[in-house]
C-alpha cells in the first residue's frame, strides 16, 4: 500500500529524473511521443520493483537502466517501431547534405541521432549505457543480463558501424 511519504518521495524522484529518463528513451526510440510513453512506463516499472533499489546508490542510474530495458522491450515488441523516425525532429539522413546543413549544430545532432537509430536496438542499448550512462563493460552486462563477451562484441561493432556511417560528416576527432 502506498503511503503519503512513499508517494511524496516517488513524485520527487520523478521530478528530479524525468528529463534524464526521457532522454534515454528518446535516444533509443527516436520519437518524442514514444519516449514519453517509455519514460512513464519506466517510472511505473520502477515503482513496481522499488524493492530492488539499493538506498546506498543514487537512484538516477537505477532508473536509467530500467529505462533502457523498457525501451528494448518496446523495440522488440514492435520491430517496425525501431526503424521509425520522428519526422518532426529527426529527418532521415540526406545522402547529399548541403554545406550549410553540415555546419549547423542542430542538423548535425539530428544526423548523428538518425545514424544512431539505424543501429540494431541491442547496439543502441550498449552505446547508451557506455557513452551516456558511463557504465563499465561489466555493469552493462549486468544491466542487460547478457554475457560480458557479447556486450564487448556489440559495443565494438556498434562503434565501428557508427564510424562508417559518420565518415561522410568529416568531423575532426578529439585529440
Amino acid at each position, binding site marked *: 500500500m502506498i503511503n503519503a511519504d512513499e508517494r511524496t518521495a516517488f*513524485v520527487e524522484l520523478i521530478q528530479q529524473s524525468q528529463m534524464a529518463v*526521457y532522454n534515454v528513451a528518446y535516444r533509443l526510440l527516436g520519437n518524442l511521443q514514444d519516449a514519453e510513453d517509455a519514460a512513464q512506463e519506466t517510472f511505473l516499472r520502477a515503482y513496481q520493483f522499488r524493492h530492488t533499489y539499493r538506498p546506498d546508490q543514487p537512484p538516477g542510474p537505477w532508473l536509467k537502466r530500467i529505462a533502457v530495458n523498457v525501451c528494448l522491450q518496446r523495440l522488440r515488441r514492435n520491430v517496425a517501431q525501431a526503424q521509425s523516425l520522428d519526422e518532426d525532429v529527426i529527418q532521415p539522413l540526406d545522402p547529399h547534405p548541403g554545406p550549410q546543413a553540415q555546419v549547423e549544430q542542430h542538423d548535425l545532432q539530428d544526423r548523428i541521432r538518425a545514424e544512431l537509430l539505424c543501429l540494431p536496438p541491442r547496439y543502441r542499448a550498449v552505446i547508451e549505457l557506455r557513452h551516456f550512462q558511463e557504465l563499465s563493460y561489466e555493469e552493462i552486462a549486468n544491466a542487460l543480463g547478457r554475457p560480458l563477451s557479447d556486450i564487448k562484441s556489440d559495443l565494438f561493432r556498434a*562503434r565501428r558501424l*557508427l564510424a562508417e556511417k559518420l565518415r561522410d560528416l568529416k568531423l575532426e576527432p578529439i585529440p
Partner: protein
Amino acid sequence: MSTIKYEPSNMKHIDEALLNEYLDGLLEPDACRSVEAHLDTCQECCSRLDELRVVFYSLSLLEEKSLAHDLTPGFLDRLPGPALSMGRKLALAIQAGVAMGLLGVIGQVMLNVVRSKVDIRPLARAWIDLAGKVSFSIPDVDIRLPDLPDYSLPFSAPVTIILLMVVLVLWGLGNARLLHNGHEVQR
C-alpha cells in the same frame, strides 16, 4: 583487460577490441604504451582510431531534449490502486458476509411468499393458450411449479428481526470502516 597481442615491430595491426579498450582507458600502462608505440608507426591503425574518436566526439555532441510537460500527473494517473490493508480486507469480508446473509434472508422470504401466496399456474396457462391460438396448438399439459424444498427459517419472527438488526449494524460498521480507510488513502 585485454593484453597486447602483437609487437609494434612486426606491423600486425591492433585488433578492434584492443583499440576500443585503449579509447575507453581500460588498458594497463604497459599495454597502453605498446599501443601508442604501434600507433606512432602505423597510419592504418591511426585512421581506425581516429574514426572511433569521431564516434566518441559525435555522441558527445548530442544535447539533452527538454520535456514538453511534467510526467508526474501521468504517472500518478497510471499508478495502480493501493493494496488492501488488513482493516480494509476485514471490512470487505464483513460486507460480503452481510450481503450473503441478506441475500439468504431475502431469498428465504421470497421463496416462502412464492410457495404460499402466488400461484402462477393460471397465468402461465393463459399465456400458453394464447400462444397456441395465435400460431400453433400445443397439447394440454399440466403446468405447475416444481416442488420446492422447505427452507423455512428455524427462528421465530422476533429472533429474525433481531438477526436482521444485527446484520444491518454490521453492514453500517463495515461501511464506516471502508470510508475511514478511503480517507487514509487519499491523505
